[in-house]
């Protein structure tokens, strides 16, 4: 099976673009990725499109209606917050299978403001605030408090994640926000769902990201200078664990994916130079240090306390600013993560560059649940 390479990748600056349509945002990212690869839409053999909000509305085809209706295969994917990673993986798989040599993956989302949560059913009465909470801040707060229960992780340690990621975003011009948030500011922000304050919740933004993936044969033809090799692409669903159906278990689904990804890449956590992981809430990031093997179980609090996961530390996490400050346009997030890591592997991340980065990991969680992990490697 051919190795798969990313030869073009980009994202639009995340923000709020109510005057644009979803296909327009996706089209913009697609054109940027094509330009980055120095290829045209006519070179693409298939398009894998990830979008959640308009999952039944043929977003991929409508993107081609914006930038070139070449008649190629289009697949539209929806997989909660793992949607973009799923589209990227479908593209990867089509090349692995030997069906195509050059394909495009796009992730795009237009978000409203406000709380994300389980929709109240049409029948009966709303259960929100009656049988606990199904809002995302509460669900991830409960997952964080499980870590507190097991390891004594403090509100302050969770808050430090947000301080770090907001600091990182000041170095990323494509992030929604570039604002420092000191610890007191984070901890004293409006409490949404203890222990997550408003500044510990990801930002709802509009966004799009796109990637051009090619076979080894095509990569050699195009030149490997800026190519990034996909060393592992894994997608898992939530395996049965005792509480999963009541309290979504984001740990088991991630641990399974991480194990498979390390095996596929023949690498271990010690080989990873930087990570973009799913910090949908500050509490979540702490869990994933351990789930991804960046430290032993119970050491996540120490990792954030000692700055090991900050830019300049042992294994920088979310140097883009993460979902907490770069923003979280659900369907775009999985490809935007890959853009960030690829940019470091290409040594093009400027002020936030992780020096000497050779191997990076991306991770997303779609609650319900899906976990997508990619391991990427610098080629030249």
């Amino acid at each position, binding site marked *: 099976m051919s190795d798969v390479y990313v030869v073009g990748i980009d994202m639009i600056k995340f923000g709020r673009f109510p005057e644009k349509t979803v296909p327009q945002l996706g089209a913009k990212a697609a054109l940027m990725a094509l330009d980055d690869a120095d290829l045209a839409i006519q070179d693409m053999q298939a398009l894998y499109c990830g979008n959640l909000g308009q999952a039944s509305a043929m977003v991929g085809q409508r993107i081609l209606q914006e930038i070139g209706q070449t008649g190629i295969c289009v697949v539209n994917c929806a997989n909660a917050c793992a949607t973009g990673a799923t589209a990227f993986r479908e593209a990867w798989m089509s090349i692995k299978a030997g069906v195509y040599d050059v394909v495009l993956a796009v992730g795009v989302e237009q978000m409203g403001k406000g709380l994300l949560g389980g929709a109240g059913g049409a029948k009966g009465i709303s259960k929100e605030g009656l049988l606990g909470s199904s809002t995302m801040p509460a669900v991830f707060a409960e997952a964080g408090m499980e870590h507190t229960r097991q390891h004594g992780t403090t509100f302050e340690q969770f808050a430090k994640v947000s301080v770090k990621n907001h600091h990182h975003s000041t170095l990323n011009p494509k992030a929604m926000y570039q604002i420092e948030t000191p610890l007191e500011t984070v901890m004293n922000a409006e409490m949404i769902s203890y222990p997550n304050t408003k500044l510990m919740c990801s930002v709802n933004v509009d966004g799009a990201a796109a990637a051009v993936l090619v076979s080894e044969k095509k990569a050699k033809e195009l030149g490997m200078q800026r190519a990034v090799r996909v060393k592992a692409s894994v997608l898992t669903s939530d395996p049965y664990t*005792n509480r999963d159906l009541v309290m979504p278990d984001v740990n088991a689904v991630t641990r399974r994916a991480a194990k498979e990804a390390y095996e596929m890449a023949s690498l271990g956590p010690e080989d990873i130079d930087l990570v973009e992981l799913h910090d949908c809430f500050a509490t979540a990031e702490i869990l994933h240090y351990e789930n991804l093997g960046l430290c032993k179980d119970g050491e996540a609090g120490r990792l954030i306390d000692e700055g090991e996961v900050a830019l300049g530390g042992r294994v920088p996490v979310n140097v883009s600013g993460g979902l907490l400050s770069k923003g979280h346009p659900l369907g775009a997030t999985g490809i935007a993560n890959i853009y960030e890591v690829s940019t470091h592997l290409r040594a093009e991340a400027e002020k936030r560059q992780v020096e000497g980065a050779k191997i990076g990991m991306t991770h997303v969680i779609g609650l319900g649940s899906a976990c997508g992990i990619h391991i990427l490697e610098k080629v030249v």
Partner: protein
Amino acid sequence: MSESEQAAKGPLPVVSWLKGIDTDDPFLEGHKCGACGAVFLGEREVCSSCGTRNQMNAVRLPNKGRLYSYSIVHRSFPGVEVPYISAIVDLDDGGTVKGNLINIEPDPANISFDMPVEVVFGDALGRKDRDGNSYIAYFFQPAT
């Protein structure tokens, strides 16, 4: 049955697995896999833990358990009274249930993991459906 007849029948259970609300001894019902022992809320025919078919047995879940995890919710959907405690409770003998933890100050200083709680039943905070039906819900409170 017309809407008014439905409403006249009295309150409904908030979830299908809340049983016996027309008696003085309501309870939560689980479905336990005869092969692997996994406990689920709501009826089902196949176990998602082990895949065994047709060995799910209805069991009466105990009204006692321990607090596994929680969050104190300060912002919720419009119209929902805050703050409140969203609690994950492991019932004695298996089964995990999520619900509001009531009759305790919503302050982390007052809440401890594994604190014993009991299941209590009552009106669903005055909420009614479109047809005017009222509902009976379950809650957790610190065990006495």
